[in-house]
């Protein structure tokens, strides 16, 4: 599988990257970890004239403490996120979800930013980012803007990041002390989620004070199960069933070789209960 020919640039600064993009216009593609872009190029589903590799821009890589939030550079590879102490302490849900992505090789290459901009509804990064109320930092010719996770995902493979723009940072409000779990349902270990549920909860005296639940692959974008979140408040380990039963309400999951929409709706309810249960330590 050989891609069509393209020009390649690897700028070392954000400004140079933006300039390279501006110059090429529609015909450029940004390269992050390449784990989605390279298959696309090799299968010739896309043939950009120029590829702008962000790999040498150090500023886009790394995880830092932003006070009330943690800030993750868009080019931070999955493997760093999984093992990072800040993430584990303040956004445990993200670490747990990212740990389930593909296999170790892909986790060493693939980046959080690349995954978010690629916006595969079966990808495992969107749901936790949505559930954790993250904010994305997007930079373009017109400067920097921030977009809430709720507005970020527009459709299948479509986000708020426009042509000529770059996602630079993901800011996640600290969820210190919250329990979390990511229930990913697959047939073989290295598969994309058939359905997955990201749940994180804050407990008070054994019952749920606050809950956040994100759904993977239950529609064309990651989804927030807000009704479930509300229904869970005040619930204990033994009475989750009814609160989680509505997890699939209002969703529009796909039908494919791995399961039809009805089956996915059923899975969403079961997995939501299991995710919340595990997040509660049950």
């Amino acid at each position, binding site marked *: 599988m050989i891609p069509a020919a393209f020009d390649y640039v690897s700028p070392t600064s954000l400004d140079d990257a933006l300039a390279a993009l501006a110059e090429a216009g529609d015909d450029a593609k940004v390269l992050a970890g390449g784990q*989605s872009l390279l298959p696309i190029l090799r299968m010739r589903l896309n043939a950009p004239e120029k590829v702008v590799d962000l790999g040498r821009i150090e500023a886009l890589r790394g995880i830092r403490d932003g006070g009330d939030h943690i800030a993750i550079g868009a080019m931070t590879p999955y493997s760093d996120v999984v093992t990072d102490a800040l993430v584990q302490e303040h956004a445990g849900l993200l670490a747990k979800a990212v740990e389930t992505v593909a296999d170790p090789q892909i986790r060493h290459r693939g980046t959080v930013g690349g995954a978010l901009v690629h916006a595969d509804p079966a990808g495992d990064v969107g749901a936790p980012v949505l559930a954790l109320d993250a904010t994305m930092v997007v930079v373009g010719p017109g400067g920097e803007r921030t977009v809430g996770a709720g507005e970020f995902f527009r459709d299948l493979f479509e986000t708020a990041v426009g042509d000529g723009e770059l996602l630079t940072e993901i800011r996640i409000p600290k969820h210190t002390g919250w329990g979390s779990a990511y229930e990913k349902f697959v*047939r073989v270990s*290295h598969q994309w989620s058939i359905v997955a549920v990201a749940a994180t909860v804050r407990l008070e005296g054994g019952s749920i004070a606050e809950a956040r639940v994100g759904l993977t692959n239950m529609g064309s974008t990651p989804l927030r199960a807000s009704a479930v979140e509300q229904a869970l408040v005040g619930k204990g380990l033994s009475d989750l069933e009814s609160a989680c039963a509505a997890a699939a309400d209002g969703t529009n999951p*796909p039908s494919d*070789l791995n399961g039809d929409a009805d089956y996915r709706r059923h899975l969403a309810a079961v997995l939501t209960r299991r995710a919340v249960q595990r997040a509660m330590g049950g």
Partner: protein
Amino acid sequence: MTAVDDRPTTEIGSARLRKEDQRLITGRTKWTDNIQLPGMVHLAMVRSPFAHARVSGIDTAEAKALPGVIAVLTGSDIADIQGLNITAWPITTDQKAPDHLPMVVDHVACAGEIVAVVAARSAAVARDAAELVDVDYEELPAVLDLKEAATDAVLAHPSLGTNKSAFWQLDSKAGGTGGDIEEAIATAREGGILIEREYRQQRLIPSFMEPRSTVVDPTGDQVVLWSSTQVPHLVRFGIAATTGLPESKIRVIAPDVGGGFGGKLQTTPEEFVTLAVARTLGKPCKYTETRSESMVSAHHGRDQWQKLTLAAEKDGTVTGLKVELMCDLGAYAGLVGGGVPVLGAWMFNSIYKFGAYQFNCTNYYTNKTWVDAYRGAGRPEATYAIERLMDELAAEVGVDPMEIRRKNWITHDEFPFASVAGMTYDSGDYEAATEKALGLFGYDELRAEQQRRRESGDPVQLGIGISTFTEMCGLAPSRVLGSLNYGAGGWESASIRMLTTGTVEVITGASAHGQGHETAWSQIVADRLGVPFENVEVLHGDTQIAPKGMDTYGSRSLVVGGEALVRAADKVIEKAKPLAAHMLEAGVDDLEFAAGRFTVKGTDKGIGLTDIALGIWTGHDYPEGLEPSIDADATFDPVNFSFPHGTHLCAMEVDTETGATTMRKYVCVDDIGTIINPLIVEGQVHGGLVQGIGQALWEGAEYDEQGTLVSGSFVDYTLPTAADTISFVTDHTTSPSTSNSLGTKGVGEAGTIASTPAVVNAIVDAVRHLGIDDIQMPCTPERVWKAIQSAGGTTDAAPVADAQAHFDEGAPNQDPAAGTTDGAGQ
């Protein structure tokens, strides 16, 4: 029948590390794609995105104009020299088979067929140019479903007039090997038990590790073709028989080959097209497929509907079995093709004593990828059917499934046993293998746990699956093949060259592609000739070095090729004996041979075989009338198959809330006769098990309504990895085969044949109390869950034939619409 040899051995039975692994694992070796020749040209294929179409025009102008392109050739350009992909086994003399042209001239019968080829200075340019070839297709109605094909409403090959290829029957009454099946069924219908089922063998993709690759060098006196194939000798035959090139002008080499699983038991369109382009241009050419091309264009496996009627008495004694198969050959009859399901004819009766038996097989064409051998070829299908049926019978009678098997199997004192299908099983001991397996498994404890989980209504239920299987290996006695209308023999050859400086060259006609022949063959020769293991070099896979051979498939290499090797070794000793006598100044009758030396009985006088080799090379002093050589050749044609067997036990957990299944325990005890190398055997068993489990749980080639292969990449064709399997418990019992002097039976396919029904039986057993008696393969969580939801009813829920796109909006992995004008669909 050959007596089993019982001379002492030191190498045979030792778990030697494989000598070939260093180079195979590091890749520092000659894979076909590693070959670079001066002036070599690279090819890219333009393939049809349509399942059924007429090619009304091909515009190559734009592609030809691309810098670096040397030629763009279509089917009509190479029509005279391209040859034909052959069928070695027309199962009946009136079998209908469309000509399988390597490159389509005007009629496309399945997606992925080659319609044009680009030759260019680099592989990248070839690929770019392939995108520019503009093919006009007139789409024709495609027949995709096997049962629809049987109605002939839409024809896969309109010129054939029907989709039916052939009908083949084996009947125990007609053959004099058993009773009348209709009578047995009628009796059972009256006052016994009749189990009637229909099972599906889904389509599978062999998924060998190394994609196929071919290099052809036409510049010498001989045309040399390197190919990633299991069957260099058959490829050479196919070329000679169909292209007009004399056989003596063709040399075929299978260098190191990265797996095949039957998927490279073929003469491929790609080989023939590469050859035709090389001959046309007079330049060396290379073609290496992509994985996506491999999945759609290399042959697939299985794909049957099995209608089964099992007749039994009320106590569970089986009186007869009737098998009616519908088999999907895809678009063409392949090399073994229509014969693959027929290989199951002798195996549906398996290890049991049935009074009457009838096997019926009808093969059909559809507009899908052609189907041919895949690990086990015919026998996994048979084993699946009978082992599923025995469980159903046990449920009907209300006894443990092991009890129903004990009641019906051949006991160890009944060997040799003439089966109702007409085979003579030479040796075996089903009781011994079963006892050992039950012990290792902890059968009773697991049954008790199953009971507890049922009683407590645990959301996770436990099931136990049994598969007591046998298979026929060691393909094959040539006379038997002749009687079946097969186009070739089943012998194998070996040569031994005693080199002058103490080392030994062994040439085998079997063509290894990952099995470890070099190691096992070295062990056999080391024992036989008393030379060090390290001093043996095994050569294979090149028609110039190993001119005679029938290659590697059907668990035949060791059983047939190993015996040829033993015979060649014995000839070496025989030829050396008079020379030794001459050199030792003793009589031939006074000599003994052991551990590589001839000694004069009762003295300390002796000479080593390798010293004789050096002596005879100089030729300075040897008896008159003898030829100055101790090298030897042997060709062995077996008189019978060999019949490995085993007992496989599997415990599966079923999550009734999601339908997910988890393997809890897997134990197998295989009787494969004498074991030459236990480590290689372990590898074959483990790999085989995973492949069989893959069919039960994960794998399936699915097409959409347009005839596009939806599971056309490893994203959607869910091939298991090590992370998806558990640690298996494997062990053995040994009843040596009597069809070869080593006592070996073959192990290459055992795991695959046995494991599939063990897994499915376990899953069905876990949920049988809910009213479920079948779940179609692959037993996906969705299918299991739906079965539970509609418990009691049958569950043939077909998956939605659609793949989820992970790459781009509206751009699935293979989009026929995208190929309307560009031919390069993949």
